[in-house]
Structure formats: structure tokens, C-alpha cells
């Protein structure tokens, strides 16, 4: 496949994942091996398979929309790295 450091950094960017230079280099080698390994499937004939044709025991799971007690705000905020005035706090997103 020939995946290089630049490809890895682009993928990491898409996944919002900062990498160090040495990580990017190491992963480029690993990913290249992993992708070559995955390419083995290309030789397999899967033309008989229709992914739209679902198993018969797969069905939609529906429930009534009922009002039930929910978790307290304090409980939900308890693990927040930063909070302000009862909200999760993040850097400004909209100018």
C-alpha cells in the first residue's frame, strides 16, 4: 500500500488525535503492515453477499416515550474536567 508518515498524520488529524513525530513514524510502519495484511481479503469472492439482506432476527427495538427521572445535573457534571455555572466549560467555539 505504501502508507507514509504524511498519511498517518492526515488520518490522525481526521480522528482529532495529536501524535508526536516518533509516534507518526512508528505508526506509519505498523499501519502499512496492517493494511497489507487486510488487503488479503481482496482476493475473496464475496459476490454472493448482499449486506442489505438482514438476518431475520434483527428488528427495530422501539419503546414508549415515557417521562422518567433522570440523573441529577451535579452527578453528570461530577467528572467534568472543567465546569462553570452548571455547564461543561470549553474554549470559545463561535466568534
Amino acid at each position, binding site marked *: 500500500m505504501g502508507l507514509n508518515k504524511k498519511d498517518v498524520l492526515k488520518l490522525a488529524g481526521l480522528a482529532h488525535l495529536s501524535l508526536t513525530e516518533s509516534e507518526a513514524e512508528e505508526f506509519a510502519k505498523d499501519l502499512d503492515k496492517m493494511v497489507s495484511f487486510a488487503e*488479503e*481479503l481482496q482476493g475473496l469472492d464475496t459476490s454472493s453477499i448482499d449486506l442489505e439482506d438482514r438476518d431475520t432476527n434483527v428488528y427495530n427495538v422501539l419503546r414508549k416515550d415515557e417521562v422518567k427521572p433522570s440523573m441529577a445535573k451535579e452527578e453528570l457534571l461530577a*467528572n467534568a474536567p472543567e465546569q462553570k455555572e452548571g455547564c461543561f466549560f470549553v474554549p470559545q467555539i463561535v466568534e
Partner: protein
Amino acid sequence: MHLFTKTADELATMLRNKEVTSVELIEAYFERIEAVDDKVKAYISLDKEGALEKAEEIDAKLEKGEELSRLAGIPIGIKDNICTKGLKTTCASRMLEDFIPPYSATVVEKLEDAGAIIIGKLNMDEFAMGGSTENSYFFPSHNPWDLERGPGGSSGGSAAAVAAGESVFSIGTDTGGSIRQPASSCNLVGLKPSKGLVSNYGVVSYASSFDQTSPITKDVKDMALVLNAITGHDPKDSTSINMEYPDYTKALTEDVKGLRIALPKEYFGEGFNQEVKEAVLASTKKLEDMGAVVEEISMPLIKHSLPAYYIIACAEASSNLARLDGVAYGHRAKDYTDVESLYSNSRGEGFGAEVKRRIILGTFVLSAANYDSYYKKALETAKLIKEEHNKVLEDYDVIIAPTMPTTALKIGQKQEDPVKDYLNDICTINANIAGVPAMSLPCGFDKDGLPIGMQLIAGEFKEETILRVAYTLEQATDFKDQRPKL
């Protein structure tokens, strides 16, 4: 009398005969943990105070003669990717190092309703990615049978704790063998139930199509008791199966007459350790001697399962782990300038190497240019593999295979090449792809005294068949009674 070598069923009888109280049991297990966990490193966190409080409640109920579950008063550990309200749940990751869940997983609630007492949270590979616990952010766990070796993974802490007598049984998760591999490495029984039999609500997702909450026990009877407690429909998990659930202890009968066993030759070929193959075949021969019919078959698609599994698992992981962004919970980097760098830096610092590797591969196979040739192809392959399994399991009651190609590896012996590491999963991933139940059962020891496990794989919701075959085999051997000298 060593309390720490006993099964849940034996301890349940002792509790009822007043030979021991639940409080004494908890004390004894914490003494054991103090004595051996420095060497085994099974636990990430412990909760002695909470455990003793619950044990007092159980003792009071027992004193009053209340009828309780066989699991009541029994000390257990839970894998650290399963949420326990008020008790830290880290996924062995820096990302969730300080995360205290505001609710408990359904499996935890069910065990607590049965009276089982959670004494701590068990080590694992970070976010269940790995097969040795060496990917834990905190420390690797050690195999009680040989401390220089790993206990397998990713539920390595769950197996090491039970084998070392630090937990009577334990709960972990199995996405590609993460219960069965460590059970095999530590001479224990590990069952991955059919997809949807045990609720995954409150269990941190890795690859949702394959993830299955699963138990590890010392013997088959305990497995049936635990299944009775944790199976059932859960409205909070839309993949949970709504059906009539059996009493699994009723399957504990010695009867394999006419049982049809398939031995796929792909599981006994090159790359498989000779002693492992011999031990699995010797146990299969025992079943044959007791009246089962054994036939060698071929499942040619097995050789394609690894790439299909890793493509799908990594794709799902990259999506599932997107929720960890340093906003609502989890690690937040100190250094950032805007919300984008807050995400990237928090994730870059919070995740370890294997998790990053899998997120990147997942992002690769899901990107527009590669979607059809990798992801879609893998889904089609998985469906073919599922069809092949269903067909074999229509003709046969069980498939027998080794659990792992080798016995437990030395810590640090992991391959340089991640692909070679993935080859260790070759025997176990197919049951996850097919969604069928599979158990690892002790079946011998190699020349170094390391445990060997065999797999019993049956059709969807045929857990009772597996329990019956395993129980029959267990009664004919003494592997389950062997304990490591620690």
C-alpha cells in the same frame, strides 16, 4: 482450609452451614490480596469498606434465614471497563484515570441484586485492546501459574485474580477472545455467551458488533450459577435478547451420547503448538469414548477472519472512542488554544499506542476512498464466515478448537510486529463474528506446567449444550482442581 481456593457454590454451602460469614470471607479475600497482589497485580482499585458494609447486610439476611442466591456474600472483582457507580472505572487508560461512573452497568446491578459483593476493579489491556494486559496504562498483570508470564488478555486481571484466589469468580468482556484467552492461560472456565444474552449496558464500548460481557469461573457449575444471575432482557440495551431464559444449572448433566462434534482442520495446522493440539485432541477423544461422534471437517473461511475482524473492530473503535474528547469527562490536556486542539491534545495524551494505532486504522478503513475496498469487504467477509458457522452448527452440536495456538507468553515477549500479535486471536474471533457462544475449558498442561484451554463452540443460544459437554468432560478429568502454587 483455604477459603481462596473454593468455588462460589462451595462457599455458598459454607455460608449456609455457618462455617463462615460473609464478613469473614471478605476479610479473608483482602488478606489474600494483600499477600499476593504485589506479585500478581490483578487489581487497579479496591473497595474494602463498601464490601464489608454489603457483607454485613448479607450476614444479617442469612442469620434471619432469608432465601438468597448462591452468589450472595461472594467476593468478586469486575473488569475495569464495566461501570460501577461510585467506584473508579478507568478502562486501564490515562484517559479515564479518574473517572467515577454516576451509574452501574446492568451486569453489576444484577450481580449486586443476587448479593455478590464487588471488592475491586480488575486490570486489562487499555480499552480491551490487546491480549496480555501489557497495554494497561498502569502495569501488566502476572500469570499466577508463572509470574514471568502474562495472564492473557484483555481481561487478564479478571483471570489472574480468580486463579490467584483474589476473587471467587469475575466478570470481563470478550470482543475477540478477551475472556477465553485469559481463562485458557490461567486454567479457568471462560464463557462468551451468544451476542445479546448478557446486557452490555454500562460497559465501555470497543467494537459494538462483537463486544460481549462475559464471566470467568473456576468450574462449570459456577458458570451456570453466574449465567443464571446475569442473563436476561435489558430494555436499556437494544441488542439485548428478549426471550425465555433457561435455568442453566439444569444443563449440568453428564451426557454426550450421540453428540455430534466437528473438528475443523484449520485449527490444528501449522503454527499451533504441538502440546496444545495433543491436549485438545485427548479431551475430544474422551468425549468420543463417552459416546460422542467426532468428525474432522474443513472451514476454509477461517483464514480470512483475522483481517475482517480487525478492519471491523478498528472501524467501530474509531467511532466509539470519538466520545472521549476531554469535554464532559476524561482526561483534558493542559495545553490547548482552541476546541480543536483541546480534542486532539487530550486524546493524544490520554490514549496509549495500541489504542491510537487502532483508531488510525479504523479512520483509514472508514475514509471515503477506502470504505468499499476495506470496510464493506470486511463486512461481506464476516457475513460469509457467519454463514459458514451457521451451516456447520446445523450439522454438528459443537465445534472443538484450541483456545490459543500457544500457552501463556512471557511478559515482554510480545511481537514487534502488531500483525503477528493479532495472529494469537485466530481461534477465538470467529465466535464473535458469528455471534455464537464459545467456552474455554481447561484441558491440560504443557511440559512447563502452563495451562492449556480448549474451546467448545455451539449454535446461537445453545449455551446449555456447551455447559453439558463441559460438565461431562470436567467430571471425567481433574484439571479444574489444579491451583497454581503461589
